[in-house]
C-alpha cells in the first residue's frame, strides 16, 4: 500500500526562476516556493503525481483530452525556447501510471494516456523548486484547463477522489506527494492581461483554507472561471487535488496576486 504523505499547490510563472536569479531573495514567489519545498522535504516522498494543464506544447486541437495520464519513461522540458530556465529530463514511473490508467478505467474514469511527452513550463517550473535535481520520478496527470468545454469542476473532484483510492490500493510502498500546478485567476494573453480577479482569488483562498472543497467545486463553473481570465482554468488542477484531500485542511495557504501556494500534510 502506497501512502499520500503530502499535497501541495503552486503556480508556475515562466519567469520566476529567471527573476529569482536576477534578484535573489527579493521575489515573493521564491520565498513561498521555499516554504512549500521545506514541507515537501520533511514529508520525504518517493514519487510525485503532478496535476497540470498543458499550454499547447504537448497537446493541440488535433488531439486534446480532458484528462490524460503521462506514461513516458522520461521526458524533457520546458520545451518553450522563450522560457528562461534550465532544461530538465524528468523521469516518469511507468508501472504506477499504467496501474492508475487501469484503475481509472475500471472505476468509470475513461482517461487518456500518453507514452511520449513534451513538457511545458507549467509542468517543469514547480518541479524546479519542489523536486531538486529531478531526483524523484513524476507521474503527470493532465487536465484540460484552457479549451472550452472545460471538464466540470465536480468531475475533477471525483478524479481526485479516485486518485486517492488508487494510491491507497496501489501495490507499491511509495510515499506520494500530489502537486497541483496552476494559478487561481489570471489572464495571460487575452484583453484583460494584467488584471487579476481578486474577488474570485480571495473566494478560492477562503474556501480552500476552510476545507470547503465541494463548495469550491460547485462555484467553479466554466462561466465563473472564464470571467476571471483565460488562464484561470488552472484552478481545475487545484480542485482535482482537493478531491484527494478528504476533510484535511491546509497546513499553509498563501495567496499572491492571483497565484496560490498551499500545503496539506497527512499522518
Amino acid at each position, binding site marked *: 500500500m502506497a501512502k499520500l504523505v503530502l499535497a501541495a499547490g503552486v503556480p508556475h510563472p515562466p519567469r520566476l526562476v529567471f527573476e529569482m536569479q536576477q534578484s535573489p531573495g527579493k521575489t515573493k514567489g521564491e520565498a513561498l516556493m521555499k516554504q512549500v519545498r521545506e514541507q515537501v522535504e520533511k514529508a520525504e516522498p518517493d514519487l510525485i503525481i503532478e496535476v497540470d494543464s498543458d499550454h499547447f*506544447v504537448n497537446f*493541440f*486541437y488535433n488531439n486534446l483530452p480532458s484528462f490524460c495520464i503521462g506514461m513516458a519513461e522520461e521526458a524533457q522540458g520546458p520545451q*518553450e525556447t*522563450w522560457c528562461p530556465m534550465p532544461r530538465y529530463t524528468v523521469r516518469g514511473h511507468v508501472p504506477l501510471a499504467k496501474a492508475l490508467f487501469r484503475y481509472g478505467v475500471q472505476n468509470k474514469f475513461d482517461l487518456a494516456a500518453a507514452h511520449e511527452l513534451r513538457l511545458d513550463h507549467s509542468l517543469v517550473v514547480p518541479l524546479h523548486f519542489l523536486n531538486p535535481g529531478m531526483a524523484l520520478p513524476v507521474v503527470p496527470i493532465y487536465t484540460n484547463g484552457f479549451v472550452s468545454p472545460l471538464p466540470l469542476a465536480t468531475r475533477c473532484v471525483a478524479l481526485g477522489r479516485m486518485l486517492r483510492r488508487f494510491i491507497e490500493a496501489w501495490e507499491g510502498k511509495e510515499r506520494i506527494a500530489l502537486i497541483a500546478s496552476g494559478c487561481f485567476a489570471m489572464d495571460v*494573453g487575452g*484583453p*484583460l492581461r494584467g488584471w487579476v480577479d481578486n474577488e474570485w482569488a480571495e473566494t478560492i483562498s477562503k474556501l480552500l483554507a476552510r476545507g470547503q472543497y465541494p463548495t469550491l467545486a460547485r462555484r467553479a463553473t466554466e462561466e465563473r472561471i472564464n470571467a476571471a481570465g483565460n488562464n484561470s482554468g488552472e484552478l481545475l488542477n487545484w480542485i482535482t487535488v482537493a478531491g484527494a484531500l478528504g476533510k484535511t485542511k491546509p497546513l499553509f495557504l498563501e495567496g499572491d496576486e492571483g497565484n496560490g501556494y498551499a500545503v496539506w500534510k497527512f499522518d
Partner: protein
Amino acid sequence: MSVYQVNKILYLTDNDAAFRKRMQEEPEVVLNEFSLSTEERDALTSGAVGKLYQMGVHTFLLNHLYRWELFGVNRDNYLTRIREGMAYDPRFEQGNMPVQRFIQK
C-alpha cells in the same frame, strides 16, 4: 471558417523551430500551405490581433504573434490591438504587459 488552421500555424510557430524560421523568412509562402479564408489570411498578415481574437483564435496561441514578432505584432502593440473593437473596460487600466526576454536558439 478554418480557425483551426490559424491556431495550427501559431502552434507550429512556437513548437517547431524549422517552421518558425520559415514563418520569419517567408511567411506568405508558408500561409499558402494552409487552407485559410481570405479574411483569416488578411487578419494574420496585417497583424489584426483583435480580429483574430473575435474569430475565435485561442489567446494562448495569439500570444505567439508578439512573442515571435510576426506580422508587425510586438509586445508594445499587442494589447492595444487585441482590444480593438471592444467596448472600453476599466479593468484595461490594471497591470502592464511584462517585459519579455527572448531566448533565441
